[in-house]
């Protein structure tokens, strides 16, 4: 049921959801990457876009369980390398979305791009298509590091692409970096961070290198050819990243994300962390409606076969129990600077987290890992570094004996609070 939407005809309690599109193509596979990616030719990419348009059509009358019709205010193209799609193909996707699903008038489009795909022509095309945020997969400004990471761009490409992007007039430009390479020391990391800051992007993501078993790095690691950085050094680099970026005017708002002003924080990614509904299209993309999470077929061919047969290409789904939702809320909140709002946690789950974990909270506060103030439980910088363990340490025993209270209203409230 196509609808030309305006904000006026939107029901007030319909949450604003996020839409993610996974573009699984890269010009080469990076040795550390464990996303669903493949190297595809021009024809294959065009065929992918055809399938994607069909998938979008399958979501024409999308209603999320318990929430009714859904309206999106963020669109995020990730991958893979979405910048490998031609402007023509990107245009077909955006047209289809506008025709088929309910978007707010000011829905924000983000696009991930590799530096080598950034030219003045492509930048102009993306601007014309309405891309608001350009996220550049720079990873490093060091030639050796880029080679180790198997990237296809040079430090000069990286610098040039950021300069051009910043000048092109996007709402915001973000730079992705990777730290924690096997031999990285504080001085190479510091140079990377300083170089990024010098180019004045609006947002920086700095991810630690993770070695996943099925990747090239994973196999090298298993054979003993590649060593993970010792934990102490990982901690040192993690803390250095946060300190350098904060001093340069990019305070963290999440474990790996930094913005020079709250308005540059990723609207889309924050939805994942706040249990706001989102729909993912494309191979391996995940969706969430507040209670259920489902995910698409990971392999392109399987994904395509399902769509061509007229089915949503869903590979699996799970219904989250109250316990699951509470644990996720805890784990996701403790990764953010804002931390966990205890009163909304209690309102939502009918569970007084601090009362059930008094000794732990006091200990963590004494150790300087967590701060409890104004009914907020917020990690410190050192706490950020051990956020996984923090979440796992809390007891949720006894939670969920009563049914979870409706989430839609609190979601709206939390959206309103977004800066």
């Amino acid at each position, binding site marked *: 049921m196509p609808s030309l939407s305006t904000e006026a005809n939107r029901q007030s309690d319909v949450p604003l959801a996020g839409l*993610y599109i*996974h573009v699984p193509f890269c010009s080469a596979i990076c040795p550390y990457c464990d*996303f669903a990616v493949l190297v595809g030719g021009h024809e294959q990419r065009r065929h992918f876009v055809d399938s994607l348009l069909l998938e979008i059509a399958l979501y024409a009358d999308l209603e999320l369980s318990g929430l009714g019709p859904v309206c999106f205010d963020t669109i995020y193209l*990730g991958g893979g390398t979405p910048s490998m799609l031609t402007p023509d193909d990107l245009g077909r996707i955006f047209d289809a979305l506008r025709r088929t699903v309910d978007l707010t008038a000011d829905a924000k489009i983000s696009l991930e791009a590799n530096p080598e795909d950034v030219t003045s022509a492509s930048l102009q095309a993306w601007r014309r298509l309405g891309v608001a945020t350009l996220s550049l997969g720079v990873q490093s400004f060091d030639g050796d590091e880029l080679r180790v990471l198997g990237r296809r761009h040079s430090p000069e490409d990286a610098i040039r692409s950021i300069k051009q992007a910043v000048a092109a007039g996007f709402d915001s430009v973000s730079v992705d970096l990777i730290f924690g390479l096997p031999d990285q020391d504080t001085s190479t990391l510091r140079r990377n961070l300083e170089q990024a800051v010098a180019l004045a992007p609006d947002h920086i993501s700095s*991810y*630690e290198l*993770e070695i996943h078993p099925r990747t090239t790095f994973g196999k090298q690691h298993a054979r003993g050819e590649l060593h993970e950085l010792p*934990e*102490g050094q*990982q*901690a040192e680099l*993690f803390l250095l990243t946060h300190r350098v970026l904060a001093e340069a005017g990019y305070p963290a708002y999440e*474990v*790996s994300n930094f913005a020079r002003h709250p308005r540059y924080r990723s609207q889309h*990614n924050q939805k*994942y*962390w706040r249990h706001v509904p*989102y729909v*993912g299209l494309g191979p391996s*993309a*995940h*969706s*969430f409606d507040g209670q259920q*999470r489902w*995910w698409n077929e990971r392999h392109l061919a399987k994904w395509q076969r399902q769509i061509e047969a007229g089915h949503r290409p869903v590979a699996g789904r*799970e219904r989250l129990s109250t316990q*699951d939702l509470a*644990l*996720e809320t805890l*784990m*996701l909140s403790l*990764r953010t600077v804002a931390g966990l709002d205890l009163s909304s946690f209690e309102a939502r789950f009918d569970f007084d987290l601090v009362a059930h974990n008094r*000794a*732990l909270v*006091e*200990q*963590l506060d*004494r*150790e300087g*890992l967590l701060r409890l103030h104004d009914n907020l439980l917020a990690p410190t910088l*050192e*706490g*950020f*570094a*051990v*956020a*996984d*363990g*923090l*979440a*796992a*340490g809390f*007891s949720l025993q006894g939670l969920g004996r009563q049914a979870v209270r409706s989430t839609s209203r609190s979601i709206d409230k939390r959206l309103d609070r977004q800066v």
Partner: protein
Amino acid sequence: MDTIRNFCIIAHIDHGKSTLADRLIQRCGGVHDRDFRDQILDSMDIERERGITIKSNTITLPYEAQDGKTYSLNLIDTPGHVDFSHEVRRSLMSCEGALLLIDASQGVEAQTMANLYLALEYDLEIIPVINKIDLPSADVERVREEIDSELGLDPFEVVLCSAKTGVGIDDVLEAVVQKLPAPVGDPNAPTKALLFDAQYDIYRGVVMLVRVREGSLRKGQELFMMHSKKRYTVEELGHLLLERVAGKELGTGTVGYIIAGVKSVQDIAIGDTITDFDQPASEPLPGYKEAKPVVFSSMYPVSSDDYEDLVKGLDKLHLNDASLTYEKDSSAALGFGFRCGFLGLLHLEVVQERLEREHGLSLLLSAPSVRYEIVLKTGEEVAIDNPSLLPDPTEIETSAEPYIKAAVMMPERYIGTVMELCRERRGENTAFTYLTPGRVELTSEMPLAEVLFDFYDRLKTVTQGYGSFDYDMLDYRITDLVKVDILVNQERVDALSQLVHRDKARARALHYCERLEETIPRQQFKIPIQGVIGGTVIARTTINAFRKDVTAKCYGGDISRKRKLIEKQKEGKKRMKMVGSVEIPQEAFLAVLKSDAGK
């Protein structure tokens, strides 16, 4: 009586005892091939898996010998560990002879010696049997020589066999018939039978295993138990083939079973002498000793929801194991549990393993303790086997601890290291004698508490497996007892408290701290671990905090995967006990009990 032979098989572990028993049973048609399974006499899973025998068992084998007569061969299977030595002794007491089984490639080993001496103590006739002669590494001549020089047995009496292939099995059976004496005893004397073991049958109650020494047992007979002074009527008796075969009478010299309306193994005393109520024997059989628990430990379910299952499990084990004692106990750290008494550490391990396996329980145990005798300043005497019940030191006049007489048999070359080990363990009056040239027996009066903690492991290490060990309880001696508490992150973990000799306190506390440091997972904060006596810290270690564990990416919407990782982490914590804000894994409670020999 001439056609009866009562015998057992004694052997070092893995020398093929169960396989030989299996083969003898098969040869005598004791079991149809379709019913056959390996280690047929070991009925408990744990016996099969560990290759050890815990309960005695017995089987009567009809055997037609070369002299044309049919014999009743009673094979009595015995446990082979020092913890169960009272059971071994009673089994040996019901035999006239023993097959001493020796591996053709391994030769004479520590347990071979210990078992031989035990058998000789009961005047058993010994037939040396060399097993596994089919092995490529078999060296029959060397083993024959060892039998001569190390055991002092006649090398020409040796029977060769392979229990695996069946070669020589007939020779073994013929040797039993020809070389072992028939039982002796006066059939007309008043009834005198040894109760050497008992099993619990859910339908029939207690099934007593007996060896008739004099007179006979009959159906309907009124029995009198000479030690426990109880009276029963024989409801059923007979021989044990693989199943019970009821009969009318058990004659002099025979081995069999009696069912006499005994409700629980607690009601009878293993080792008791059974006689006729109306015409009692004047004297019981010699050698009766009550099996008293000497090792005490508290058991707690890891999950407090499992408490009821633990109660059921202990009740059920107790039906078949009179030597296990238990009473309610509770711990601030571990919740409700039971204080249990055991015959020794293996007994403890076996009980724990059976509870975990047969009742699906996951258990935590406190440090094993002996029972101390405390005299208070008021003159009152108390027996303490639980550290948490130790009176305040200022109220104690004297403490005494149980001593044992330890006997270690070993080749001469280890004497130095073993004497050093005994000295380390506060052994007194250590002495040794040569049994044969090259082989010595060392005796030492040692506190039992010193033996509880990894003595057996250490002995095996220092003698490379050649030392065998046995002990008898001796007496109580005055000692300097202190209570060592363990603090994890400043919180006392009562289940880790222990009573030790003052001289050993520091080393033991450090051992605990170090094991805990290795087994408690690092947390986000530093965890000090301290061993203290009263308010004085005598040992300490620290578990450093981890500083980085957060995964970088949590976007693309795949939150489920990440949540599952954290759930897994949390799942791991379920097997842990929360003490203050520190999780202590079950392994930590076990690790502290483990030896640090070899480290």
